[in-house]
C-alpha cells in the first residue's frame, strides 16, 4: 500500500552573497514504510533542509527524492508536516483546523465530522473542539497540529522538531502519545531533532548528520523494545556513543562560527 521514501544522491546548495553553501551532499537513504526515522545533528547540519526537501518546500539542487515512483517537487497532503511553531491557523477553531485539509479534498461533511471526532478522541482534545489556538497551551497546540496532519490520512508524517518548544514533561507526554499513534496507525515518520535522548526514545533508526556539508555520519538502528527506559544501560550506552558523534559536529559548527566572527 505505501511505498518507501527513496533519497538518491541528494545535494542542496544555497546561493548566498558570501558564496555557495553546500547544505546537503551525497545523501542516500531508503526509508521503509512504517519506519520511524530520526534525523539527528546540531543546528546547521541540514537536517531540516533534508526534511523540507522531502516535504517539497525546497526541492534538492541535484539528485531525487522518490515516493511511489514519483519525484517530489512540491508539497502535498501525502506528506503531512508538523512544524515546531505549530502553524495552526489562529482564525480557525480546533475542529476547523483539523477539518481544513479534508475540506480542501472536498470530502463529504458527514465524513469530515466523523474523522474530526475520531481525531479529537484520539488526541484527547474533545473538550477543546471549539476553542481557538490562542486559548491552548503549547502541548495542546501541537496535539491539534498532529491531528490536522493525521486527518489527511497520509502514509508519511514529517515532523520538524515538533516538541522543541515544549517543557520536558509535556514533551515526554507527547512523545508517548506519538508512539502510541504510530503503533496504532503504522505511519512512516521522519522526525528532525537535535535531542539525542529524544531520538533514542522514539526511533527505529537514527541518521546522524554532519555539519556543513550535511552528509550522513552514522545510520544507526535502535534495537530496543518499547517503551524504552532512558535510565537503562543499553539506552545510556547508545546515548554516549551518539553524543560523541553529535558533539564532534557541534564542535565543527562552533569552530566555523568563531572563524566567521574572526573574519568580521
Amino acid at each position: 500500500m505505501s511505498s518507501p521514501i527513496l533519497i538518491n544522491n541528494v545535494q542542496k546548495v544555497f546561493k548566498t552573497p558570501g558564496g555557495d553553501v553546500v547544505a546537503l551532499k551525497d545523501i542516500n537513504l531508503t526509508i521503509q514504510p512504517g519506519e520511524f526515522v530520526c534525523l539527528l545533528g546540531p543546528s546547521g547540519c541540514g537536517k531540516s533542509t533534508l526534511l523540507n526537501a522531502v516535504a517539497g518546500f525546497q526541492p534538492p539542487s541535484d539528485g531525487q527524492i522518490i515516493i511511489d515512483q514519483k519525484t517530489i517537487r512540491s508539497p502535498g497532503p501525502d506528506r503531512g508536516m508538523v512544524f515546531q511553531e505549530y502553524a495552526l491557523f489562529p482564525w480557525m477553531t480546533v475542529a476547523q483546523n483539523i477539518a481544513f485539509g479534508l475540506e480542501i479534498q472536498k470530502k463529504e461533511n458527514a465524513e469530515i465530522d466523523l474523522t474530526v471526532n475520531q481525531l479529537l478522541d484520539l488526541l484527547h482534545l474533545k473538550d477543546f473542539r471549539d476553542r481557538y489556538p490562542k486559548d491552548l497551551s503549547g502541548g495542546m497546540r501541537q496535539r491539534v497540529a498532529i491531528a490536522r496532519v493525521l486527518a489527511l490520512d497520509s502514509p508519511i508524517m514529517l515532523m520538524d522538531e515538533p516538541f522543541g518548544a515544549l517543557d520536558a514533561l509535556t514533551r515526554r507526554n507527547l512523545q508517548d502519545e506519538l508512539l502510541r499513534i504510530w503503533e496504532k496507525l503504522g505511519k512512516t515518520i521522519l522526525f528532525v531533532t537535535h535531542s539525542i535522548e529524544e531520538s533514542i526514545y522514539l526511533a527505529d533508526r537514527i541518521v546522524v548528520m554532519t555539519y556543513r556539508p550535511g552528509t550522513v555520519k552514522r545510520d544507526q538502528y535502535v534495537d530496543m523494545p518499547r517503551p524504552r527506559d532512558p535510565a537503562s544501560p543499553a539506552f545510556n550506552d547508545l546515548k554516549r556513543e551518539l553524543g560523541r558523534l553529535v558533539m564532534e559536529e557541534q564542535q565543527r559548527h562552533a569552530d566555523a562560527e568563531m572563524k566567521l566572527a574572526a573574519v568580521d
Partner: protein
Amino acid sequence: MQKLKDFAHGALVPVLVLVLWEACSRAGLFSAVVMPAPSAVAAKWWAYLLPPQEQDASQTYLNWLLSGELLHDAYSSLYRVIAGFVIGAGLALPLGLLMGANTRIYALFNPLVQILRPIPPIAYIPLAILWFGLGNPPSFFLIAIGAFFPVLMNTIAGVRQVDGIYLRAARNLGVGQWTMFTRVILPAATPYILAGVRIGIGTAFIVVIVSEMIAVNDGLGFRILEAREFMWSDKIIAGMITIGLLGLAIDTAVSRLNNHLLRWHRGLEH
C-alpha cells in the same frame, strides 16, 4: 458600587467644566450670542430632537416620534457615511488584496497611489462639484476618497505581513491558489484590514461634515452651518454635540464588530 464610583470619577471634570461655563454665562461674562449657556444648549438640543409639530393623523406614533430635525439630519449624515464608505472600501479592498499579493501589480499601481494619497479629500471639493453637481453624489465621492486610502494601505500591509508559516502549512495540506487567498491570506490579514476600516470610517465621518457644508440641504454638517447664518450659537453647539455622539456610536459599533471578527486574535479579550 465600584462602577458607580468609576462613573462619578470620570464625570468629575466634565461636570466641573459645565458648572463653570454655566456660572460664567449667568454672570454675563460672555454674550449669549457668542457663547450660550450649557442649559440653553441642552434646551435647544432637546427641541432639535423632538418632532416639530403635533402628531398628524396620517402618521404612526413611531413615525411622528422620529420626524424631528435632529434625527433626520443624523440619519442623512449616517447614510452618506455608509454609502460613501461602502464605495471607497469596496474599491480599496480588492485592489489592496491584489497589490499585497502580487508584486507586479503592486509595482504598477503603487506610484499612482503614492501621488494621490497625500491629497486631502477636501481638496477634491471643487472637482466633486464640477463632476457631480449638487446633492448626495459629490458627498459620496468625497467620503469614498476619504475611506479609500486607509483601507487600501492597510489591506496591502495586511496581506504582505502574513506569516510564511501559514502559507507553508496550507500548501502542505494541499491548498490551491484560490483557497489560499480566501481561507488563509484574507483571514490572516483581517486584523490589519479592520484597523484600516476603523481609520477609514473615522475619515469618512470627518469628510461627511465638510461635504454637507457645500452641496446639500440636510445633515448635521449642513445644520450647523445653517445655524450660523442665523447666529444660533446654541444650535451650532447642539449640532456639534450630536456629531460627537454619532461619531462615538459609529466607532463603538465598528469596535464591537472588530472584537467579534477578531475573537480568535491574540491579545483581544471578549
